[in-house]
């Protein structure tokens, strides 16, 4: 393990629309850091310090820097999480575009998933490291999740679901209506392709992990007569990043 060039306690992992995001409003500090992990290089991590009273927070784009370069199944999830560990990160906040399965959800809504069902099948879901315990307990760390929930009131609408369950599909294709119906019967409220194994690897690495879901679309067959809407644009990142920076500040104060 090479010596980290900086030490940060919080990393924000950006999903939908993180690629190509202009970070200047959040005051980047120094050059992006790439960590050389046993699993390959981490994505470039940029330090952001929007508030001089709080320490800098790390930020990286999960799917690539200037465009959606890779779909979730082919990301190096282990390099992201191990890189975070090398930097001394104790909390990871991520954002993800999610499809609405639950009828109470509309495009643009924000949710903090409370649980996770894993329908992926090709991904490496463990470090397999002898010193690390298998992931167990809540899929999302309660304190980190609470910090996200506390940052939510400034969002356009309050979160309509208190404890949504996220189902992670393999992708990269979208789901069929029949598959979404199966996930709905299984208890899923939102669908995405990212959080497994990211959440489980963070758990193994002993990093508190929680995620903010931005409802980007209705899941296949779940528009329920509503006009089809989609939001995959920059507004997703511009909404989620400040909320997660606020969550980081909430956590910093509560420690």
């Amino acid at each position, binding site marked *: 393990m090479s010596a980290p060039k900086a030490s940060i306690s919080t990393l924000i992992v950006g999903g939908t629309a993180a690629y190509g995001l202009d970070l200047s409003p959040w005051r980047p500090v120094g050059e992006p850091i790439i960590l050389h992990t046993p699993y390959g290089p981490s994505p470039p991590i940029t330090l952001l310090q929007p508030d001089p009273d709080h320490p800098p927070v790390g930020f990286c784009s999960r799917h690539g820097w200037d*465009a959606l*370069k890779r779909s979730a199944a*082919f990301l190096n999830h282990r390099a992201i999480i191990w890189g975070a560990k090398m930097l001394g990160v104790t909390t990871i906040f991520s954002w993800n575009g999610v499809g609405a399965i639950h009828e109470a959800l509309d495009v643009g809504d924000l949710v903090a998933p409370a649980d996770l069902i894993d329908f992926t099948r090709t991904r490496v879901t463990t470090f397999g490291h002898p010193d690390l315990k298998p992931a167990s307990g809540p899929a999302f760390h309660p304190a980190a999740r609470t910090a996200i929930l506390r940052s939510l009131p400034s969002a356009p609408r309050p979160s309509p679901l208190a404890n949504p369950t996220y189902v992670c599909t393999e*992708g990269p*294709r*979208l789901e069929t209506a029949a598959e979404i119906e199966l996930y709905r*019967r299984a208890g899923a409220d939102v669908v995405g392709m990212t959080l497994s194994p990211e959440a489980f690897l963070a758990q193994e690495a002993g990093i508190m992990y929680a995620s903010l879901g931005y409802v980007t679309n209705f899941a296949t067959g779940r528009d329920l007569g509503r006009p089809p809407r989609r939001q995959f644009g920059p507004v997703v990142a511009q909404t989620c990043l400040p909320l997660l920076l606020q969550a980081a500040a909430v956590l910093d104060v509560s420690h």
Partner: protein
Amino acid sequence: MPHLLILALPIPPRSLEMLGDLIEERDVQTPFGPVGPLARRQTAARGPGVWILPYFGSPTRTDPRATLWAAKDLGVQRILAIEGMVGLEHDLTRGDIVIPIDYIDWTKHQPTTFFQQTGAGYISQKPPFCPDISAAIRQHLPAARPVIYLGDEGPRHETAAEARMFQQWGAQVRGLNLVPETYLAKELELCFAAIGLIAAHGADRERAYGKGEVRRATREVLEALPAIFAALPDPPTCGCNHLQDSARQRGVLSDDWRTWK
């Protein structure tokens, strides 16, 4: 453009004579392995002709990417698969003809995409099967029952407990040859749809013994094929051949599909 007929059930070659004379046989080499032999039949009335690919009987599956790459290489736009399926729903019996209208992917070791290095595999599955081909099937096989298809890994049969679980999930039939083919076809902008012949009952039911009903239904399907192919609109109205327009416009994919990855 010739069509491709995938035969995922045993059919004697002479029963395909209504599709025209055998004019060519070919093997296709693909980056995912060889495919073939494919046989091309064409009627005297000319028409686009049909490549025919037997697609069953091996203990291991053909790499679906090889099949679809070969189709693209042969200039095919439309793929029709005929498969012998397991009837999960208890109303379905041997010899019933079905048309899959949606699917659940329960494969475990099949490729999920051609696109590991770009985001070009992010494709809507609405509609799950090509609307043009599906409409032609329903027009000329009006008795074909619309069903939700469960694409299983195989080659083993399902267990009785799995058959019950698949029904709880909403699946009505089970098969091994349409998934992931149907969504990988979309990635290459190919049309893909299927006709199913119920050849067995789910493992939670008593075994059904044959009295020639599958053979009779197979003949009915084969006899409808020329009319189904003739009913396909030209040019296509389904949009399958434009599924990567936006990826091309964004520069994610080039105009040469052979470079796609």
